[in-house]
């Protein structure tokens, strides 16, 4: 995004969002607040997608994988924390397992689980993207490979029922670090933690976008070979962008799991992964506040429509995909920014028009 389009909306949009998020507990009902918390957790993933898709031009159709890795990491801890020593999670007993799988054991430690929320998506994303970007697999190819990744992840989760909870996933959590998860206090605390995490991600990614790193990402998006000719190896930048987006997705997934009380293959597979992209497309892929707003917008709409008219939701979603992508590629943020510019033309915008006018005037 050039300096020209950094309008009032992109400069002050985050203040509006922050004020709304801070005021929400006093305005909306507890049910709506829990939805808002859930959607803000998803917005953290969307913020990562702005860096990856908007800035670096890398379309990932597999963000659900990293969302799920973060979610499952915290869910495994929550599952174990509620047990008395020596017991097994309920679904393991049902499917006839009598020992805890070895990779479940360390998740009894809350510190390990929280570290895993960051580390597991980060390490897997770094490894995967390094293998693929190293060989200059880009664009459509990359998008399709990430989609295959999402498919594999979801099928593995479903097929390994005794150790992953299978199709139902992990659910039915009772305590959260000693506190009763259902108490109003815990819900409010969780909400504030989510708001703080979203704000930190927002500011962090904004800082990244403004840094030299961000400039190089945009340059790679617009002309990867030119960047190479200037002497930069583009692969490491892309790996960092992909990994950062994956870590944000993991954090979002972990917070989502605590809000929703469930994580399952149906939330992380091929279809949800591509739905995550549409949150950002609706909001505006180049705009951080747009991506957050788009996530809230799409998900509140989904909640309303799919509970009233379940059949209609998929038609609506399909139409949104087509209309947003073909007619408004810069999303809601683009529409708002254009409108603001029309209301209050800036000096910069005038500067763009004048030379043309001068030229037209001087022509015979």
């Amino acid at each position, binding site marked *: 995004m050039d300096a020209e389009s950094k309008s009032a909306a992109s400069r002050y949009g985050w203040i509006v969002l922050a004020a709304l998020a801070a005021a929400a507990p006093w305005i909306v009902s507890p049910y709506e607040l829990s939805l808002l918390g859930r959607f803000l957790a998803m917005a953290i993933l969307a913020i990562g997608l702005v860096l990856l898709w908007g800035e670096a031009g890398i379309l990932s159709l597999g963000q659900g994988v990293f969302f799920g890795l973060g979610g499952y990491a915290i869910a495994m801890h929550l599952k174990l924390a509620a047990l008395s020593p020596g017991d097994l999670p309920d679904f393991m007993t049902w499917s006839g397992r009598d020992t805890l799988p070895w990779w479940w054991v360390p998740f009894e430690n809350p510190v390990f689980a929280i570290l895993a929320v960051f580390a597991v998506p980060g390490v897997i994303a770094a490894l995967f993207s390094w293998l693929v970007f190293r060989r200059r697999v880009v664009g459509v190819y990359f998008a399709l*490979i990430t989609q*295959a990744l999402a498919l594999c992840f979801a099928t593995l989760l479903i097929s390994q029922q005794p150790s992953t909870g299978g199709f139902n996933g992990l659910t039915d959590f009772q305590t959260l670090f000693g506190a009763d998860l259902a108490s109003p206090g815990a819900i409010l605390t969780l909400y504030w933690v989510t708001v703080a995490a979203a704000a930190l991600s927002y500011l962090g990614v904004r800082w990244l976008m403004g840094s030299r790193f961000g400039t190089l990402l945009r340059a790679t998006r617009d002309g990867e070979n030119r960047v190479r000719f200037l002497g930069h190896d583009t692969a490491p930048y892309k790996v960092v962008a992909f990994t950062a987006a994956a870590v944000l997705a993991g954090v979002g997934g972990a917070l989502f799991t605590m809000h929703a009380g469930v994580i399952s293959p149906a939330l992380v597979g091929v279809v949800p992964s591509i739905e995550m992209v549409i949150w950002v497309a609706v909001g505006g892929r180049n705009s951080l506040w747009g991506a957050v707003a788009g996530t809230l917008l799409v998900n509140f709409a989904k909640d309303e429509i799919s509970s009233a008219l379940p059949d209609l939701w998929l038609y609506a979603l399909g139409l949104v995909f087509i209309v947003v992508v073909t007619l408004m*590629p810069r999303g809601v943020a683009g529409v708002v920014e254009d409108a603001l510019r029309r209301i209050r033309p800036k000096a910069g915008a005038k500067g763009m028009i004048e030379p043309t006018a001068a030229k037209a005037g001087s022509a015979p």
Partner: protein
Amino acid sequence: MTELPLVLGQVFNGFSVASLFVLAALGLALSFGLMRVINMAHGEMLMLGGYLAYLTFLVVPGPLAIFVAMPVAFVGAALVGALLETTVIHRLAERPLDTLLATWGVSLIMQQAARNIFGAIGVGVTAPTWLNETVSLGGVTFPATRLFILLVAVLVLLALSLVIARTRIGLLVRAVNQDREMAAATGIDVRRVDLTVFCLGTGIAGLAGVVLALLGPVTPNVGQSYIVPAFLVVILGGLGSLVGTTIAAVLTGLVSALSQIFVDVSFSQVLVLLFVIVFLQFRPQGVVAVRSRALEG
């Protein structure tokens, strides 16, 4: 060597799966080579072919209904393809990643429409009795349905290579494939070539849908189960090459079928993906690399 029949059987299964992959991937590969776009609704063309087969079997009973269903499905899917190309894909020609998303929207709508029209459970096609036979060879039994699918795939491949190599439209396709601007400059109607190839591709997918209907019930998301492997086949095959796509489909089919001797279906899916990623480490351009001096492939 008690395992030999098992391995042979899986090799045959591999080819049989590969023939489905080829039919599903050919259309994708053709239009990807030409326009650099991937149609995410391609799987729903398989689905459409399946439902058209079901409808044809209702109208035309008898053992030869399948030979009526095939052209019906081909034409039906090609027409829907033409609609899709002119309304959505053509508009997004310069933005391949956005084409993915827009066509995914089309795919969602088509799936939901099928769910509302035909129900979520799926409809069955009774295969004609002459397809219920089995052929036994060297201790391995081959179901006739699978042999028939293999035959269809081979015939489609032969016909398509003849069209590309010998006909005037094939000549135009090759020209646009090599250099779009230059082809346009010599007066070739590039737009029409794009449209023709896209329709041909979706038509083949419709044909594949008829074949799928012989194997199992046609459900609203029947296409989804074949489309992700088909995407991987296109990636493996290299830019829009017929030979590459065929080899890639056989490789993918064999990896999938042979790995299922040792692991379950879900792990074999992971192995196929790993195979593709490892393969790209050695040949990032795919099986058949198009050599070109152009900087941006």
